[in-house]
């Protein structure tokens, strides 16, 4: 399952999508909206995408994981308005062994953060701004 959604993300259904009887390890990553960024208090977040391209990229990343590590993966990215604490992205990876499950999960979020045409707009008490970090800027101050 590789998709964009406007509904709240639930982890449990993703676990059952990926898990096979031969798997001994399941890793997951949730990106969640936090209450501060760049020194400012954030009150909510809006996620916006170039939808067909973002959907294709997420599927491509999922296939990469499955080809490179022989894992089974699910990736869901949420769009629209999110409150503090809500998940913006979920990545779930099942594998016979844990090393591959951790490596693939980490790879997926790095690829999505670097490549997926998705933008967040941060809302503060007195305004809002699109977050459009320079590539590389996110390495010295990584967000979620």
């Amino acid at each position, binding site marked *: 399952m590789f998709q964009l959604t406007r509904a709240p993300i639930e982890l449990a259904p993703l676990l059952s999508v990926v898990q096979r009887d031969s798997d001994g390890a399941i890793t997951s990553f949730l990106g969640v909206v936090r209450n501060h960024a760049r020194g400012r208090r954030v009150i909510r977040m809006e996620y916006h995408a170039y939808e067909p*391209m973002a959907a294709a990229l997420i599927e491509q990343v999922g296939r990469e994981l499955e080809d490179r590590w022989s894992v089974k993966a699910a990736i869901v990215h949420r769009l629209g308005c999110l409150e503090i604490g809500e998940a913006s*992205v979920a990545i779930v990876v099942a594998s016979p062994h844990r090393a591959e499950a951790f490596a693939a999960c980490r790879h997926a979020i790095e690829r*999505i*953060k670097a*490549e997926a045409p*998705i*933008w967040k707009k941060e809302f503060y008490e007195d305004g809002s701004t699109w977050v*459009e970090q320079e590539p590389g800027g996110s390495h010295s101050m990584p967000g979620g």
Partner: protein
Amino acid sequence: MRVHVYFFASHRDVVGTDQIDLDLSDGCNVAGVQSLLAERYPRLAPLLGCSRASVNEQYCGSDRLLADGDRIAFIPPVSGG
């Protein structure tokens, strides 16, 4: 030929619309579209410089040649995840 250009995030705010069509002469490439946009929307010009081009939902280089009906976007630095 006619191509479709899509705008996202801050670019959309600057341009004031999410999509325009452009009529191009044959042999035009992505860099040519970027120049046209920079001329038409001066406030967009500096933003285009730190964007990545895509044609038909695939990232590509600025020398990519265009065909009738192509969908073009200049992707601002992304912040999903």
